């Protein structure tokens, strides 16, 4: 599927191309240092287990960033007006996760689309759900 460049090219029901982002320990650790968001539960499996997690977990702000990057790969020219995420379960570092999205509403006058967003963990549980409002140019 080619990238969306114009509002006219999308409609309710469209799926964003699914992605499986890299949440390996080196990538998550690099993100945490770049974001100045370094906590052991994100970068150390054993430390996370001591806190009660199954393993180190992907930071919420990284999940949100990954979803935002998926939106921009789908529609490179759009502006994200709002992105709202609900963290329902942990996403584990060094696991396979899948991101999806879909267009759920459109405002033809304002050129705004509403999106559903989700990240599904390796065991099939939906770890993150959310929505976004994105603006397209005239």
């Amino acid at each position: 599927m080619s990238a969306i460049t114009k509002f006219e090219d999308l409609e309710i029901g469209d799926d964003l191309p699914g992605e499986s982002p890299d949440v390996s320990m080196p990538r998550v650790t690099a993100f945490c240092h770049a974001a100045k968001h370094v906590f052991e539960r994100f970068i150390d499996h054993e430390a996370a287990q001591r806190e009660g997690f199954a393993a180190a977990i992907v930071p919420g702000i990284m999940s949100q960033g990954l979803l935002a990057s998926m939106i921009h790969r789908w529609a490179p020219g759009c502006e994200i007006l709002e992105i709202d995420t609900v963290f329902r379960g942990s996403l584990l570092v060094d696991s396979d996760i899948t991101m999806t999205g879909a267009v759920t509403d459109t405002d033809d006058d304002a050129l705004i689309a509403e999106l559903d967003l989700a990240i599904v963990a390796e065991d099939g549980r939906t770890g993150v759900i959310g929505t976004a409002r994105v603006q397209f140019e005239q």
Partner: protein
Amino acid sequence: MTANGSPCRYSVSIDSNKMRLDLHTHSIKSDDGRAKVENYCKWIAKKELPLDGFVLTEHRQFDADSDYRQLEDEYGLAIMKASEVETDYGHVLVFGVNDDLLAAIDFTNVRLPIETVLDESRKAGAFAAPCHPGRKRVGLFAHYEERGVVQGVDTVEVLNGGSIPGEDELSLAMADRLGYRGFGGSDSHVVSRIGFCATDFPNQQIVDMEALVHALYGGNFSAVSMRPGDSD
């Protein structure tokens, strides 16, 4: 077999002679819901989902105020309101919430005794049934392992759109073993997940909550999965 002796029925077929309802959805009225009700309607229409309606089961509350009759007319859908409450045996859907039930139960209590929910629902003419019973911690059957069977349960949600592999299988197997009837619901919290699971009511017209409660007590229904990848 079900409690009334008839076989458990879980189908994936569809015909024009039945109502198909998603009995478990959440809107922005729930703290973790992000779906606008109108967007559910638009999605169902755009995707041509084989649904005749859906029930909003908001967490720990009953939304008495919202009026969706205009959307019902515009989209030709039955939109009903119920609740999902939290008990010491996991989450329970309550259909037919009324003033009597609201007076009898504190819907915000996250440790309601399940027997109280079942008894008071019955007294008030409502219908209560555990949802996602195969799920750890918040599912009925996880508690059965530790604390035994609850008397008064006769129906559970055997197909839940948010289940991970193994959870619905456990729900189906346990429901079959215990003679419970089974229904389905998507448990959608965002628009694009409505209709993942639903319930078929053969030869019945269900256009309001009174009719739904009557149908649930009647027991002539079956759970259906419409998750992407499932055949229908």
